[in-house]
């Protein structure tokens, strides 16, 4: 909870930075503040404190996802350092990013439907504005509008579901809803409709097939660094919220939502990975691959029960680190080539460092040992098999092989195609951050036991 106060304080500091004229020091202040927030979250470990008459509970699951959100955002700010020097209204944008984090922490810790709703809205409203932050760019406009439309549409479904569940149980608190479900021998039919509507609303937020159609468009149209924020911090928060929702609130009515969710999982895995093969733009390919990764995390979510939090956490951490590297490099290339197509061709000759970092990131996403992505997938599959879902695992293994194919397409074009344009200079700061993220991926792959606190 204290970390949430710190994050909100940082947002306010950012808003007054323009007036008080300390824009230049903003990023260092953020890094210190976010590290403080992580420290406060670590100090709360194991306490499981309740706040606002049980509306938010900071148990270990909430804390670990909060820490992941904060750590990802800290890396994001370091990568975005250059971005904040080229764009206008940087303090407002930085404040919006901080509020995205605040919304994410609320989504990871809610125990009341009102908190879930507010968390989602704090996160989404900031992101709508960020997606459209290039006001004169039509792609950015379109991304913002589509994101807004789909986001509020999904919120409508979620709220209808919450209202129907409230009608059946008379409660908004997750634990009390679960108790009320257990106490009632026969629930009215609209309760089940409500559960399904909530699942649909959340599936929109995590961009699972068939509710994914907005994701590639929005990911492609938004400024690249904002896309990396959506693909990492927002996805982490949405999965944390999804996990809490289904396993804290509706475990008793598993038979209603588990089968639809497994169908969604298979559809997400197959459709996203197959579509990604046919993409010509790397940014759009990464968007589809991010939808595909949502499928693997859903597989962990549907097969593991309450114990799946550790697996989801590990997979999300590995995925976030790899995605941050990929989008940071994509952003650097876009700046160097003025957003030209096919800029990955011959990258190894233009900048060996970027090419190697990108290769590590893509190999991790493809699930090649000894990188973190391999252990993420391995944990998910082992968990699913131990629960007897062999069929789902077979599908997931086949789709991850498809994934290897399209990730290697990019790697091959980086190493073996002829480059266009001159060398790309990489600032030492970016080099340091990317090396750090690569080290995280290697460390998580070689010593996965260190990163399994749950």
């Amino acid at each position: 909870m204290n970390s949430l106060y710190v994050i909100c304080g940082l947002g306010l500091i950012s808003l007054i930075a323009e007036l008080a004229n300390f824009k230049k020091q903003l990023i260092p202040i953020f890094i210190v503040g976010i590290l403080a927030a992580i420290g406060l979250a670590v100090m709360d470990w194991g306490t499981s404190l309740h706040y606002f008459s049980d509306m938010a509970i900071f148990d270990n699951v909430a804390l670990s996802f909060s820490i992941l959100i904060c750590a990802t955002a800290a890396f994001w700010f370091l990568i975005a350092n250059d971005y904040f020097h080229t764009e206008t209204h940087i303090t407002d944008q930085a404040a919006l990013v901080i509020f995205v984090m605040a919304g994410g922490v609320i989504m990871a810790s809610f125990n009341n439907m009102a908190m879930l709703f507010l968390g989602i809205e704090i996160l989404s409203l900031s992101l709508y504005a960020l997606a459209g932050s290039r006001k004169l760019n039509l792609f950015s406009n379109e991304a913002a509008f589509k994101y807004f439309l789909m986001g509020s549409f999904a919120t409508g479904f979620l709220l209808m579901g919450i209202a129907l569940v409230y009608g059946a149980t008379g409660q908004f608190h997750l634990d009390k809803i679960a108790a009320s479900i257990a106490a009632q021998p026969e629930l009215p039919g609209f309760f089940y409709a409500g559960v399904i509507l909530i699942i649909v609303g959340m599936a929109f937020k995590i961009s699972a097939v068939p509710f994914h159609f907005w994701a590639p468009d929005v990911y492609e149209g938004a400024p690249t660094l904002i896309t990396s924020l959506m693909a990492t911090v927002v996805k982490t928060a949405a999965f944390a919220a999804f996990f809490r929702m289904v396993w804290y609130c509706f475990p008793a009515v598993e038979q209603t939502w588990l089968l639809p969710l497994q169908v969604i999982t298979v559809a997400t895995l197959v459709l996203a990975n197959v579509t990604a093969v046919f993409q010509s733009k790397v940014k759009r390919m990464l968007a589809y691959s991010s939808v595909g990764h949502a499928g693997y995390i859903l597989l962990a979510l549907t097969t593991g029960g309450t114990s799946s939090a550790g697996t989801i956490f590990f997979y999300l951490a590995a995925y976030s680190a790899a995605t941050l590297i990929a989008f940071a490099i994509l952003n650097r290339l876009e700046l160097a080539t003025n957003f030209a197509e096919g800029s990955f061709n011959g990258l190894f000759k233009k900048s060996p460092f970027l090419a190697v970092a990108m290769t590590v990131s893509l190999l991790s996403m493809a699930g090649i040992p000894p990188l973190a992505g391999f252990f993420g997938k391995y944990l998910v599959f082992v968990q699913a098999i131990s629960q007897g879902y062999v069929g789902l695992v077979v599908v997931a293994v086949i789709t991850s092989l498809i994934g290897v194919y399209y990730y290697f397409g990019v790697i091959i074009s980086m190493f073996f195609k002829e480059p266009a344009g001159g060398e790309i200079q990489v600032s030492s700061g970016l080099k340091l951050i990317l090396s750090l993220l690569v080290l995280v991926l290697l460390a998580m792959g070689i010593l996965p036991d260190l990163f399994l606190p749950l």
Partner: protein
Amino acid sequence: MKTAQGIPLDYYIWLSAALFTIGVLGVLYRRNAIIIFMCIELMLNAVNLLLVAFSNYYNDAAGQVFVFFIMAVAAAEVAVGLAILIMMYRNTKTTDINILNRLKW
């Protein structure tokens, strides 16, 4: 018979389900961005109606407080949405969403 304010509870559920469906269909079929906004508001207000009815039925204020949350957030959402719409209108001179076809595969 479950009732709220003397009216059967089922009536409220059917009314808000109907309003909600009209909103959903509006979002899916209308091509004008402002009408789509109005349809989203209709969806949210169907939820509000349902929450108030249930709140009355259970004699529980939590449902009505939730309605306040929804109203406040919906206002904020529309503010952001209209800002995005104006930004789009400045660049394209139209509010027809068929213009939004630059991003596809």
